[in-house]
């Protein structure tokens, strides 16, 4: 066990955990930020996507010891009032079915648009292919990303 002071959604938070603990479980079990979801644990589904700086990361294989003082953003911190353009576009297209994958989808989409504000269809597909939606809402996810891109 060791203490780690993390910068999460703009707040300093200290946790006392095994250094190998993935950020996913630090967020969910220790910081009560449960919007970040467990889907596979092996970086194959994208349900656990968070931002490290501006980059989308799979938190399920990211040990807490590697985070350091980089800014971590989770779905809870993507916007103050849930009105990030990606979140708004998701509501406009009423994307979700079960909704379980959607925080990961949204985090990945937000990082994509930050890096590439006007992605082509192929670029959207390339960036989003790591995020599984078992309910298969892909058509709407893509449409919402295009709306958010404006």
């Amino acid at each position, binding site marked *: 066990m060791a203490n780690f002071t993390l910068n999460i959604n703009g707040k300093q938070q200290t946790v006392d955990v*095994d250094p190998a603990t993935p950020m996913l479980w630090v967020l969910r079990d220790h910081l009560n930020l449960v919007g970040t979801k467990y889907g596979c644990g092996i970086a*194959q589904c994208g349900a656990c996507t968070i931002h490290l700086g501006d980059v989308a990361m799979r938190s399920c294989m990211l040990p807490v010891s590697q985070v350091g003082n980089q800014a971590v953003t989770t779905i809870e911190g993507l916007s103050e009032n849930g009105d990030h353009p990606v979140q708004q576009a998701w509501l406009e297209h009423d994307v979700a079915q079960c909704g379980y994958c959607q925080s990961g989808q949204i985090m990945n989409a937000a990082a994509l648009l930050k890096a590439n504000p006007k992605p082509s269809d192929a670029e959207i597909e390339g960036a989003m292919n790591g995020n599984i939606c078992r309910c298969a809402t892909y058509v709407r996810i893509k449409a919402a990303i295009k709306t958010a891109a404006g």
Partner: protein
Amino acid sequence: MTTSNSRRTFLKNSVLASGGMVIGVNWLTGCKNASSEAALTMPKEWFNFNAYLKIGENGVVTIFTPNPEFGQNVMTSMPMVVAEELDVDWRNVLVEMAPFDAVKYPPAIFGQFTGGSRGIMSKWEPLRNAGAAARHMLKEAAAQAWQVPASEITTSAGVLKHEKSGKSAGYGEMAAAAAKIPVPVKPTLKEIKDFKLISQSQKNVRGKEIVTGKPMFGVDYKVDGMLIAMIAQPPAFGMKLKTFDGSAAKAMPGIKDVFSIKTYNDGYEKGGFDVNAFPELVAIVGNSTWEVMQAKKALTIEWEPIAAYSETVNGWGGKQVVNVPAGLENSDDHAAKMAALAAKPGRVVRRNGDPEAAFKKAAKVIERSYSCPYLAHNCMEPMNFFADVKGDKVKVAGPLQIPGFIEPTLAARMGIPVENIEIEMTRMGGGFGRRSYSHYLVEAALISQKMNAPVKLMYTREDDMTNGVYRPAYHAVYRAALDENNNLLAFHVKAGGIPESPLHADRFPAGAIDNYLAEDWKIESNITIGAFRAPRSNFIAGAEQSFLDELAEAMGKDPIEFRLELLKRAKENPVGERNDYDAARYAGVLELVRDKSGWGKTPVAAGVSRGVAAYFCHASYAAHVLDLTMENGKPVVQKVTSAIDCGIVVNPDAAANMTEGAVTDGIGNALYGEMTFKAGAAEKANFDKYRMIRMSEAPKAIDVHFVKNEIAPTGMGEPPFPPIFGALANALYKATGKRVYRQPFLGEREVMG
């Protein structure tokens, strides 16, 4: 079940809770209206009208959704039906998930059932009656207050009005008096033409919570002092626990205990949904998920083969003896066994005319075999459940489809009356049938009981995928007899599977062909199977619709025209008595999809290949036209045009979303979906091996159309799924010149042909 129900207390607690601990799933929605636009002021007092709704003195209405939500959007569509009949402004409505309560939401077992596309279908009348009854009571109360005849009072958007006297009042003002009016047994319902809310698309009432990552799923459930549990299960079907040594695991950081649990008492007679290959498990309990995951790896467990056994299962069709063989099964053996049985005569389920004679005198016989593998449900949220057992009282909360089926199982195992069990249904991260078999709820309760503490049981993805209640492997042989002029003389289907047959003998084209024969067979197995989105139909539709396509081609007919001719016959002069489907509605979706896709009229773009298929199941009708191109030997689905007849569509945009999902899910499973077994073990345990459809493989566009009619709603979640397999197969043939008979069509084989 909870028999005493104090809504006011519940709400008070809920609101309090929103300031602090996460105690459930409903608290955070306590002040959001149904359309998710603005906050509503909470009333000071609620007045209960019935199990489905209560009205506050300020006119705010809370509507309870009885059936568990797994993405089919019943949290929105069910309250819409109540709100319609209540005649209230949707923006003044709050929505809550009802707890499981077999008395308040009858009938027992089926009252709160998510599955079989039965939700809206079975709740249509109760939901309408609930809203209409309250509206009637409000009118009566106003009539008494104003001393005017109730028949002269009208309602609109939550306001009562008496035209002649010019009096009016909001529902809130009359709520206290109205709640005391006797509940009418048969309240007058609106005329369908007068619907204002139903058939107008409304946004998901939980949309905002979803996009902001609010806790709402079983995995998010948390109370003070809660421990995390995981289970270790046999590595293969056909194995069981022999001995284990948990001492090393128990010594690891954060670990509280390691012990074994047994899901059923000896001699327990299982119900139809007590499907569970691994009733004896090792449980590991600790402080946090990661610590428990690590400790699980340190367990030493010896497993041993099971002996063959027979058990009596009290399922749908009464008691049945099920034989479970011993042995470690292999997919290769399964394929060989299925081919062998398919070559022998099966059990005759339906015969019309003299099919044997017709085949004898045929000028040409077409025979084709189709098969599919097991499928894992792979709900995005792995199986999990919360349990808090205190003495003889049990509180459980989590994702499940049919609380009514697991409650008696849990009561029997714990030796307590059902009255002592409280079941809270959280939003499910998918279900697809898997969460009809909620053995994991009993496991969680047993672990909580042993620990004397609240516990959340979590399955890893690997546990979830390898402890499946899979879609069975199926096989079907279709034969058609043609005369020298290519007229259809006879039709024969023989279908079976492990351990059940996918045959629906009384569905189309039964009823449309004079000489018809349907046979089935099955092979016993110890691999557990169960409902998977449109059970049996999810295979047989694709096989049948591929065969009809091939048959139409052999007969020199357009595939839609050919089906319409058969349906005309079934409508005008049906063969046999027991034809399940309505031939006119079936033809209706084919005609609609033909028109909307421009079938046969609009020339398809260069390089585009089209296929069509249709199917009837869950009381609804669906047809698809699928357009694809081939790029580097891989199919790219450019567009799917869908036509659905599910009666009145309560929430059209949500139903379109569901159709898009079903279409894409079907294409994924048809192309890639496959679980295989070796020495009893599921060979794929996570998404690195189990291929799921991803965004780049999804259709580029899906265009959904609904037949407009006034038929009470029929199924919606499942019907669009089965026929897409056929539409895809038929388009692939057009593209490659080769028919596909074995699912998955692509699988690991990246390139077609």
